[in-house]
């Protein structure tokens, strides 16, 4: 069930430059059955900024959810600085997440994330591991100062970091690292900027894959048609990222 809840802020900390980890407590947490869903967060309580911000659920459990977001634009800065006075106005859980069951127990799954696309992969990786799947992580960032959750991912499985400027891990893009991996994957999952998703999908052509998309949103629940993507694979000719996604099987959305 979708709830609109004033969730209690159990903690917020800056885990990398302008990247915040926000832990929220409330009943909404118990509604989440799948990693990769998102919540729609109100920034402040006045009329400016007006719209909610979509943020992936990075992790969930025990009546809590964890969000990891970059405070760069106007609204996310308000959220980080002062929008959250002990509580946050959150709508969710929204959308469809990553299918954990797509990876058979005992197989390896590839998880590829870029920047603020990394957070939902953490919850996914935990669930995969619980299901007996071996997650392998390839995480791309701009530079060392914005790398986050490296330790957390390492604890769950093999983890490769790439930075554009080479200041941490391999220099280059996630696809450069992927090319050098010698594993067999039953399935891949990816979240990040569109050009990255495209490159990942090309590199993994032939393997079953799931991609999580971003689009500007209005309602976040499928009512306003703000967030559509073209697709050739259904009769409508489009999907809505907020309610049909944000996760789609590779090949559904025209890249």
């Amino acid at each position: 069930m979708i709830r609109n809840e004033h969730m209690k802020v159990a903690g917020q900390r800056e885990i990398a430059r302008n990247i915040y980890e926000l832990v929220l407590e409330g009943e909404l947490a118990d509604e989440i059955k799948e990693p990769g869903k998102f919540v729609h967060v109100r920034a402040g309580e006045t009329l400016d900024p007006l719209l909610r911000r979509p943020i992936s659920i990075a992790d969930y459990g025990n009546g809590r959810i964890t969000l990891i977001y970059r405070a760069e634009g106007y609204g996310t800065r308000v959220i980080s600085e002062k929008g959250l006075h002990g509580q946050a106005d959150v709508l969710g859980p929204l959308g469809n997440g990553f299918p954990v069951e797509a990876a058979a127990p005992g197989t390896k799954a590839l998880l590829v994330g870029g920047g603020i696309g990394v957070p939902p992969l953490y919850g996914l990786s935990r669930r995969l591991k619980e299901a007996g799947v071996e997650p392998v992580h390839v995480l791309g960032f701009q530079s060392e100062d914005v790398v986050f959750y490296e330790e957390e991912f390492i604890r769950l499985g093999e983890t490769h970091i790439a930075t554009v400027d080479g200041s941490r891990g391999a220099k280059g893009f996630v696809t450069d690292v992927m090319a050098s991996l010698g594993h067999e994957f039953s399935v891949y999952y990816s979240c990040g900027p569109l050009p990255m998703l495209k490159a990942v999908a090309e590199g993994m052509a032939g393997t079953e894959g799931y991609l999580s998309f971003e689009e500007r949103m209005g309602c976040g629940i499928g009512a306003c048609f703000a967030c559509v993507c073209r697709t050739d694979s259904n009769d409508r000719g489009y999907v809505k990222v907020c309610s049909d996604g944000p996760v789609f099987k590779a090949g559904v959305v025209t890249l």
Partner: protein
Amino acid sequence: MNRLQVELPGLTLKNPIMPASGCFGFGKEYAQLYDLSKLGAIMVKATTLEPRFGNPTPRVAETPAGMLNAIGLQNPGLEKVVTEELPWLEQYDVPIIANVAGSETEDYVAVAERISKAPNVRALELNISCPNVRCGGITFGTDPKIAGELTRAVKAVSSVPVYVKLSPNVTDVTEIARAVEAGGADGLTLINTLVGMRFDPRTGRPVIANGTGGLSGPAVKPVALRMVYEVSRSVSIPVIGMGGISDVDDVINFMSAGASAVAVGTANFVDHFVCPNLIDALPDRMDELGIRNITELIGRSHR
């Protein structure tokens, strides 16, 4: 007696609150959140003769206390609306106002004729004011003569009362209002969105793929109130007011300005429960203000 009840051509409203067209789809999504029978009415998404995909994305952008949209009237088309969307809504005890759009008079007429026969459609809202579609649309809403003629053509075929939705992007909104009243409109709805833009400082380009978009939300409320005030004084058909409504005093103020009922658009994205919340908040606020029946508010600023 229900203190919140309002009677309008074709519509008996339990309360004067309804979601505005385009902000509520055909109701399915919000039905997950609350019982749609609670609403005074529902203005469903614009319907065109053929299915439309709409504009490229990004289609929305935030602005100070407002937002821009250029959805481009994406909708599943008349056939699907009358065979799937509207029948689905029949399970709720709520009158539907069907928003009718098109590029040519013939499109409007064809959609109006068929959609007005759907059992739960109690009124049409002629969308002559959408700023986000290139052909037709916007000129219908800015030329009094064309607007009047279109109204007449649609009235001739409609089985239910016809409300015409006015554009705020005009020099004199009362001129168009009088023209569509003369064309036989049963009521007016206003305002649609103001044409606006947002730019990306890095690229110097518009943020909305379409270039321009329609501005809505609290930012436009003062303009909407002014137009509701002006229009309701210059016609004798009822007005449904909208533009930036987000709290119970906004409802009171639009009705004081001359609206007989109100629609809520953008605020549904900010507080997804805003419509039922407003309905619940009205009686208490009316008590505080010494208002027995909501109809007492209508146009009280004119008196």
